[in-house]
């Protein structure tokens, strides 16, 4: 029968290989791959390459890497891959704020083409016109989408782009000789923690705005927060609550009047493509996560890409180089008078740029807007259904729709049954689903953030709801089952004994082996 079509519940079991750590598979002498050797004539002429070096700089003992045959290495890692629940395999709506959408496989083909992979970043410009064209055109696309004037793809991710924005803010105020005075960046607590920490890294004092009763950024709080010390406002809209701040233009105006800049963290762009833009909202800077809204795959935590955008007035501060075109010829422009220099090697995470470019080419303006609209439709559909689940609530903006995600709370469930967010996360794995609580702050207790994107079908959304429904039911009727989950995942509940104890923690296998031998911890 397969999955029960009535209940939509699967008798899922994740692959479990009980796979040893690779060092445990080592067999001395086995070889995984043989490396090219120097031509015998070269060896005749220059010797073995090692004898000529002072013995003091040579490695004495070979590294204690494991030795395995090639198929054995392949098998080991393929098994590990089976023990991983990528978005391609599950209805991945549970990782709210991450925008786990479909990464089209055709784009992966492009990224594997030798015409892309075997290109060196420092090749003569005439030999890389293809990739330069793609970078430039993606820049043009993002200008259309955001309304801003210039994009750099140098940052390696969203947080990196925030560092970029903060660096540009600093350069801007330095040019006006106001950098010493303007040492504060304002953000909201529902913004990504990096909006705070990346700014802080450059020495800015961060002012956090707490929301009003309705979970919205508080305009009066902002008005109280701005001063001649204000360098910039960094804010997301909609925030991770999924609620759009309708007064955003007043926010940016308030900051501009105080002499500060406004940076738009567009990690939550997926629901608003073609609907509303950074320009009209009054932003000077913005960034998009190409590995979220623009479909580049997440890669278990990267490589990602932060596309950093600026108005014409701030172009001079962007990291170098930018890609320009002159009479059909693309070139790298390093001539930005007040550039912040480099924050990442070369020009950025090119595979993400290529994939984002292709994704936009496949959809066009109409497709992008449809993606946004369906993401919002899916989210509100899910919203409606989840609120019908016993124990689930969603704070703020009662009666309002949401944009692309919703922050829910399981507090009622917890108070009534003792089953909380973590338990639900564990039990969801038994159905092949993810649920992610959210990062800080935990103003919303027992949080859950769902972001369906446009990629999942109605049937899949119904399946996700069915699973949540089931887990809620279990919480009331058989809480022990939920509290001891997962039962059908790869492993069981992770322990904690050693992770915070310097005597016991082991970030590497050799460290683990050492500490076991020293009696500081037990072998697993």
């Amino acid at each position, binding site marked *: 029968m397969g999955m029960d079509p009535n209940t939509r519940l699967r008798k899922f079991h994740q692959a479990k290989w009980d*796979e040893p750590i690779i060092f445990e598979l080592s067999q001395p002498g086995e070889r*995984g791959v043989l490396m*090219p050797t120097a031509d015998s004539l070269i060896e005749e002429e220059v010797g073995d*390459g090692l004898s*000529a070096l*002072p013995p003091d700089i*040579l*490695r004495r003992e*070979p590294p204690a890497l494991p*030795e*395995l045959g090639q198929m054995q290495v*392949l098998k080991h*890692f*393929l098994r*590990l891959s089976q023990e*991983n*629940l990528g978005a391609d395999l599950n209805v991945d709506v549970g990782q709210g704020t991450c925008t786990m*959408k479909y990464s089209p496989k055709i784009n992966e083909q492009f990224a594997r*083409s030798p*015409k*892309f*992979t075997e290109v060196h970043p420092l*090749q003569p410009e005439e030999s890389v016109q293809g990739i330069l*064209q793609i970078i430039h055109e993606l820049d043009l696309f993002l200008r*259309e989408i955001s309304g801003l004037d210039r994009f750099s793809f140098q940052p*390696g991710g969203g947080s990196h782009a925030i560092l970029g924005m903060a660096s540009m803010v600093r350069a801007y105020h330095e040019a006006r000789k106001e950098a010493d005075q303007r040492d504060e960046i304002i953000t909201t607590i529902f913004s990504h923690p*990096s909006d*705070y920490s990346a700014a802080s*890294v450059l020495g800015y004092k961060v002012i956090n705005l707490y929301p009003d009763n309705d979970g919205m950024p508080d305009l009066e709080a902002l008005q109280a927060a701005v001063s001649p010390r204000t360098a910039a406002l960094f804010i997301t809209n909609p925030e991770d609550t999924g609620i759009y701040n309708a007064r955003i233009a007043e926010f940016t105006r308030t900051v501009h009047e105080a002499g500060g800049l406004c940076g738009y963290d567009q990690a939550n762009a997926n629901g608003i493509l073609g609907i509303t833009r950074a320009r009209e909202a009054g932003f000077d800077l913005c960034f998009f*996560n190409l590995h979220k809204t623009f479909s580049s795959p*997440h890669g278990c*935590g*990267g490589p990602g890409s932060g596309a950093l955008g600026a108005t014409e007035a701030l172009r001079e501060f962007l990291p170098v180089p930018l890609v320009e075109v002159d009479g059909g010829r693309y070139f790298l422009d390093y001539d930005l008078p007040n550039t912040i*220099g480099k924050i990442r*090697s*070369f020009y*950025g995470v*090119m*595979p993400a*740029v290529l994939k984002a470019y292709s994704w936009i*080419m*496949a959809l066009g*303006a*109409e497709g992008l807007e449809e993606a946004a609209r369906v993401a*919002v439709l899916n989210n509100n559909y899910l919203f409606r259904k989840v609120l019908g689940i016993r124990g689930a609530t969603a704070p703020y903006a009662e009666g309002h729709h949401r*944009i692309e995600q919703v922050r829910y709370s399981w507090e009622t469930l917890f108070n009534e049954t003792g089953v909380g967010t973590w338990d639900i996360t564990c039990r969801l794995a038994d159905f092949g689903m993810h649920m*992610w609580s959210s990062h800080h702050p935990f103003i919303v207790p027992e949080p859950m953030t769902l972001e369906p994107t*446009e*990629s999942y*079908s*109605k049937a899949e959304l119904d399946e996700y709801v069915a699973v949540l429904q089931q887990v809620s039911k279990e919480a009331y009727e058989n809480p022990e089952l939920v509290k*001891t989950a997962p039962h059908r995942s790869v492993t*069981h509940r*992770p322990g904690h*004994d*050693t992770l915070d104890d*310097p005597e016991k923690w082991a*970030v590497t296998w*050799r460290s683990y082996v050492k500490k076991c031998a020293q009696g500081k911890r037990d072998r*697993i």
Partner: protein
Amino acid sequence: MSRNKTRVHPYIPNSVPEVQREMLAEIGAASIDELYQDIPEHLRFRGTMNLPEPLVAENDLKRHVLKVLARNSTCEEKVSFLGGGCWQHFVPAVCDEIQGRSEFLTGYAGEPFEDHGRFQALFEYESLMAELLDMDVVNVPTYDWLQAASTSIRMAARITGRSEALVSDTIAPDRLSAIRNYCRGIVKITLVSHCPDTGRLDLEHLRGLLSEDVACVYFENPSYFGCIDDQGQAISDLAHDIGALSVVGADPISLGVLKPPSQYGADIVCGDIQPLGMHMQFGGGQAGFIATRDEERFVMEYPSRLFGIETTSEPGEYGFGDVTYDRTSFAHREKAKEFIGTATALWGITAGVYLALAGPQGMKEVGQTILQNSLYARKKISELQGVQIRFPKAHCFKEFVADFGPSGKPVGTINEHLMREGIFGGLDLSGSFPALGSAALFCVTEIHKKEDIDALVGAVGKALEA
């Protein structure tokens, strides 16, 4: 604004009008526009985004993108001697295979049980790098070497409580730029000069700069110019004598043959793992590593995730988790423990696969081949008229500098000649390091064959005479 639906898109299953109607009915909304009620009219974009007509048929998209990419010439079609932070190395097929697996490619932030694979693969990466580096703690990789070096320097500042870093002037200009941006106002960067004939750090100059304000000495080994510095222990000792840390940037593919920095006193080691299984991808395959000893004062300062091995509720089962996720030390001067974001995990997994395939013998083989090939190229070029090898007394790994000054020809001219023969010549350094003359940075790796190098030498010879 009402819309006439014209197209259902394969990436958007719920773009089917009938399905949309059903869903809207369940929501109780008349249209999707109603769901956007909270966005006021003055913020609604009512125009059309000026994007190209979409290539909705997959084959059309394929033709278009491949046509654009066809305008590139590659380092397989030509022979390339370009290095300078991104290098052409052999990528085993198994690396491509694992890196392309959907489960890893589209994984993200799942828990240690449902994403056990990613945790174990990254723990194994940390562990394999640890053997290569001979250190006990390695991070989940960061963006690239620029970030790893910048962070290592700030870590040193937090650990020692001091605010100056002495940085060798033979590091990559891009790295220096990034370090300066990242450290401005927090750590003062002072450059240490080098010896022109050996490329080594000038120890006298270093001695003069050391003081109680110095948090660390940072140098790269091999340097940006490919020179190996055999004074590692002496530099570390000098740093330690005044309570500073020794921070070294190293090339992991050299560590099968060269002594790892931890064995000559380095406290923090950083670098780029791109040579370990990542294609060049126009600079898109970079990823940075940071490694230290397993001491609490170091571990607490990592702004990266560190995956540790742990039990689960089931006896005998391997589990993983974040080591000391709350980095609870507080250093007065440092306001934030930097930041953590999506970085380069997939490249870390790939590098783990590479190291597992290579094993100790493979790492030695590849290092040796690189030494031999680059030595051969350097020797042959040095024998040409009109070119002078820079840092002639240095031992080099993978890269070396040749100055065409004696011939009176700029690097650009030489490289144009080489291009006509299908060769990408060495990186032109005359803009960033004018003191080296009309200098080019040549990179020779294990992928080069004797005929490639001979072709280069021949072409350079002809270019010099032309």
